[in-house]
């Protein structure tokens, strides 16, 4: 077992301890480290670019993942209909984006959503009589394009998880409810939603953690300007830029520590909010 402990130490424990240690040092990777107390945290927390990256990450996280919850449940609900034909075809095609790498997705979207008037996205806007958007350089253009690629790649994954949830609900529950005279909506509300809840919590947790770690999509989508422009800079990109472009490993480590705290807090908040689904009614009835 002892080699196992050693690997575990290297992989699991050492980075955590070393990151915490580095967060209190000033270090460019070469010269000796210098203890600076909480200065790194002060520098990061007073840097407007850091807060811009927090804002960007949250906006893109919301736009990219929240709609998936609703659309994913609808798709799973439809795919779970007994009489549905071509079920396998729909399942496979909707899941297919998940197997493409994030880099590939970002590159395809960088072409679909380019600044040119002739890009697919701008052409479609034109069909609706709207003006073209600078997808690669504008404040909302970049965010929407990146959110859409996140949505496109993950919707099938979430749908399949919801589908697994729906399939785990015994059919006789619905039959019994129908006999008792419950309407379709009541069935959805009192049978489907409560029993689907663990699966919703699971995807909410994954989505929150994933959204806060967003890195590959914006970096590859923006290419050359990834670390110089601020419109789509995420927290992890800010961290990466500090570490590997500016050789400021102390502030980068401080950012990593802050990020971990963010993830823990936001995941907890989201899980708390989601676990309220379908419960309010009962609480009200109990009073």
């Amino acid at each position: 077992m002892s080699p196992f402990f050693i690997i575990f130490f290297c992989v699991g424990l050492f980075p955590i301890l070393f990151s915490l240690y580095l967060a209190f040092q000033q270090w460019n990777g070469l010269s000796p480290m210098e203890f600076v107390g909480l200065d790194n945290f002060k520098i990061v927390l007073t840097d407007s670019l850091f807060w811009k990256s927090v804002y960007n990450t949250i906006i893109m996280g919301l736009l990219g993942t929240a709609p998936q919850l609703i659309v994913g449940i609808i798709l799973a609900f439809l795919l779970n209909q007994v009489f549905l034909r071509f079920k396998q075809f729909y399942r496979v095609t909707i899941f297919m984006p998940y197997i493409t790498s994030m880099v590939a997705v970002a590159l395809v979207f960088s072409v679909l959503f380019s600044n040119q008037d002739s890009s697919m996205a701008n052409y479609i806007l034109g069909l609706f009589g709207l003006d073209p958007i600078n997808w690669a350089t504008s404040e909302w253009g970049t965010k929407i394009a990146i959110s859409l690629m996140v949505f496109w790649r993950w919707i099938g994954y979430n749908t399949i998880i919801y589908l697994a949830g729906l399939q785990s609900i015994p059919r006789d529950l619905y039959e019994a409810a129908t006999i008792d005279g419950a309407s379709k909506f009541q069935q959805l509300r009192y049978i489907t939603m409560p029993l689907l809840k663990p699966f919703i919590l699971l995807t909410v947790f994954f989505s929150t953690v994933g959204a806060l770690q967003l890195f590959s999509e914006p970096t590859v989508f923006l290419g050359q300007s990834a670390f110089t422009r601020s419109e789509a800079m995420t927290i992890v990109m800010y961290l990466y830029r500090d570490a590997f472009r500016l050789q400021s490993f102390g502030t980068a480590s401080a950012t990593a520590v802050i990020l971990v705290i963010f993830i823990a807090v936001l995941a907890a908040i989201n899980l708390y909010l989601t676990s309220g689904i379908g419960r309010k009614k009962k609480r009200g009835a109990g009073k």
Partner: protein
Amino acid sequence: MKEVGSKKFSFSKILMYGFLTLASLLSLFPFYWMFVMATRPSAAYNSIPPTLTPGNMLVENFQKVLQQIDFFGAMWNSLILCVVVTIVVLLISSLAGFAFAKFKFPGKNILFIAILLTMIIPPQLGLIPQYFLIAKAGLLDTLQGVMILSFLNPLGIFLMRQYISGSISDELIEAAKLDGASNFKIYWKIVLPIILPAFATLGIIVFTSVWGEFLWQFTVLRDPEMYTIQVALASLNNTFKVDYGMLMSGVFWATIPLVIIFLLFNKLFIASITEGAVKS
């Protein structure tokens, strides 16, 4: 089910098929689009309305890709990386999972919880220390440097422990021990054959995640000769004037093998990914 299936054309049915078909088309469109662009000259991109039919530049565009990056070398690097990591993760996870499921040793529960906790720690926290660890070991710009820290896979250990606890009885292990079999022999002769289905599940999860991983590969590999396909593809977009036909050709040829494998084994794929997510 008759009351639903009997009506041939109901409004809700049309809506349902319409919605699902739209979702399918939107899912497939980018795949088709990368194929179209991979067969067109870059100039086709300026046409309004956008070109939607394939052209005849399939080979030329790919030749341009080959001038920019070592495509086959990068694919080979990714393949080696994925195969080695997958095999090692399967072996380590099953051995550790076996130990956690069937053995008693001091600190077992604490160690198991510690491993589960590393699952929650985001990889970004480890990025900088691990980078210096790899640099100190002289493994920057090597595939070993990329793979070595991913051998210990908490999700893998967790899934294997669950599977082994659920599928192999303690009596079976005891009986083998009474017959004088060593622990390793028990693992090799009894445990391994039984957990092969779980290997398929975990193998697919590990292979696809390593194949698509970017941040760590991008950090460790700076030398174009050592690029994996993800890093190589990303480098195609790193110029001011991008040749879209060339770019999409690279993406298309890097994606198509995965699409084919997925279509052949789609049931196994989808089941594995769902199982991996739901079990954890």
